């Protein structure tokens, strides 16, 4: 177990910089998830921690020791690859024992460790099989087993579930989380799937184009996204965005379409006229009841029934910006209907119109 520190870590390939200075302190035993769209540099960052990629600038430390110039094998980490990278010519047992043999452990100790890991991962029956004789989920478990027998300081995962079908992915996700809880080993986990990120992480790093846009606990990131990018990336379906500007009295946002959405307080009085983007999550828009003034008349164009809830896609006044609303699955709405919607002040997110940075707290 160990903490992992990243200090202004940068990476360039030739002249092209792909990681632009990332700072992050991963605590001992923490499950840290790196999440972001394809090509944002998650794998590159993880591979730098593993020692598989050179660190162009900055410093990476594991358990207090700077590892910039330390070989992967001496970093005391274990990695689970997207394609599992099991040795195809070795049995499951040998796959797990390989690293232990190299480390010169005694036969008895290797046996004990492999059997223990096999017990945890329910692989006892499969120890003599070759990887090609296993299903995707079983291979995934063997890859996990190979990581845990080593009892490393840090687990590194690079999209380990992306080759599995949806159901198995959910099941393995739970298993990984339980396993990490039980072992208490620090873990860094890369994924582009925000649901996986939210469910697994103690904290997550939301990355975009080589920059850490926000680092925080899942609910914190969900409740207070630091930027337009994070707001749009975390949460499904994505947050609704509406362009507008701060009203003259600073107590509301005047939308391009003419609607006026009240803010919680008058803190923005000094920035009257400022261009902003207003964000509100689909699940936070409420149908207009008695007493609240409706902000939008939403003409429903498409109804997606998911069972537990229903997603309504529509346009403001039938011609303006598109909005998505999440309502209870029991609600009976048809396309073509018009819905009066209200955006409660407490559920509003305000972002700078130019920089995309969060303005509201």
């Amino acid at each position, binding site marked *: 177990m160990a903490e992992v520190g990243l200090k202004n870590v940068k990476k360039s390939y030739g002249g092209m910089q792909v990681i632009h200075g990332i700072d992050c302190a991963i605590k001992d035993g923490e499950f840290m998830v790196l999440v972001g769209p394809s090509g944002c540099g998650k794998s590159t960052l993880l591979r730098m921690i593993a020692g598989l990629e050179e660190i162009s600038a900055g410093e990476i430390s594991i358990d207090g020791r700077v590892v910039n110039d330390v070989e992967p094998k001496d970093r005391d980490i274990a990695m689970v690859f997207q394609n599992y*990278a099991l040795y195809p*010519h070795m049995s499951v047992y040998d796959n797990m024992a390989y690293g232990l043999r190299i480390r010169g452990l005694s036969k008895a100790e290797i046996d004990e460790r492999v059997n223990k890991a096999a017990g945890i991962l329910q692989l006892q029956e499969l120890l003599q099989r070759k990887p090609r004789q296993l299903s995707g989920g079983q291979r995934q478990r063997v890859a996990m087993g190979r990581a845990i027998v080593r009892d490393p300081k840090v687990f590194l995962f690079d999209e380990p579930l992306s080759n599995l079908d949806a159901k198995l992915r959910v099941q393995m996700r739970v298993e990984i989380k339980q396993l990490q809880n039980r072992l208490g080993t620090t873990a860094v986990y890369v994924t582009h799937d925000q649901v996986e990120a939210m469910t697994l992480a103690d904290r997550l790093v939301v990355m975009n184009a080589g920059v850490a846009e926000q680092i925080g606990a899942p609910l914190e990131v969900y409740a207070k996204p630091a930027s337009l990018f994070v707001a749009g990336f975390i949460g499904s379906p994505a947050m609704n965005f509406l362009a507008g500007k701060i009203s003259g009295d600073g107590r509301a946002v005047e939308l391009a379409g003419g609607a006026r959405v009240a803010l919680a307080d008058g803190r923005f009085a000094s920035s009257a006229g400022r261009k902003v983007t207003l964000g509100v999550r689909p699940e936070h828009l409420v149908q207009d009841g008695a007493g609240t003034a409706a902000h939008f008349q939403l003409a429903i164009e498409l109804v997606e029934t998911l069972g537990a809830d229903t997603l309504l896609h529509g346009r403001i006044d039938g011609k303006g910006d598109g909005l998505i609303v999440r309502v209870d699955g029991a609600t009976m709405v048809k396309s073509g209907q018009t819905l009066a919607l209200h955006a409660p002040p407490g559920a509003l997110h305000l972002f700078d119109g130019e920089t995309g940075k969060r303005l509201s707290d």
Partner: protein
Amino acid sequence: MRKVGFNNKLLPYLLIAPQIAITAIFFYWPASQAVWQSFLIQDAFGTRTEFVWFENYEVLFKDPTYFNAFIVTVVFSTAVAALSLGIALLLAVQADKQIHGSGPYKTLLMWPYAVAPAVAGVLWLFLFQPSLGVLAKLLRSMGVDWNPLLNGNHAMILVIIAATWKQISYNFLFFLAGLQSIPKSLIEAAAIDGASPMRRFWTVIFPLLSPTAFFLLVVNVVYVFFDTFGIIDAVTHGGPAKATETLVFKVFQDGRLGGDLGGSAAQSVILMFMVIALTAIQFKYIERKVHY
């Protein structure tokens, strides 16, 4: 698997007919001729032919020069196979380090480099030619009495080098393709598991290359058995004193030059069975050993 049927009953046979015809004309017919010939003894003028069952074979197995040819072939093929496979593997590993993961485009760039040596192979013969060759002169100036025309060992070394050189590029391409198909993450996993580069090679890379290596071994042995006839004929004529007379060269020597058609045919039949055996072993092995 989906089965595709032919509506016309005759069509499938027509489609394979050319292949069958070619195989029949160029393999089955000469092969059966060889078997038939090997049971016959002709007198020197070709006037009388006698059917003698296995007498040709019996004579052959008692013939010390046949035994000599067998030993020469074993030495020659072991040396050529070991050298050409070893050198090709070494080169392929080095090349793979430079181009791994850089896509098929860069790999294609390797081809001319890989094929050129085969074309240049014949150069070796000039370089080592005793009276004119540059390398021969160099060797002599270093005090080595280089003379493949008289010294059997020198002759053997010369044909080994020439035969090896021609084969390296072929082996290289197969090894390189094999190395390229090994996922990079496998090597990385082994590195994280703590394996040194050497250990990674012998415990991960080499076992995964072994089907390729075995395939090449068989191909190379077949090559050495048969295709080196041209080299030996051009360079040493099997000499000096039969030091480079391989089995296939002896077939030619005894049949064409010695006029012993029956004995020569018997030798061909034996060679044919060796190749069939090698090929059969290879198919069995490859079926068993494919990893993915």
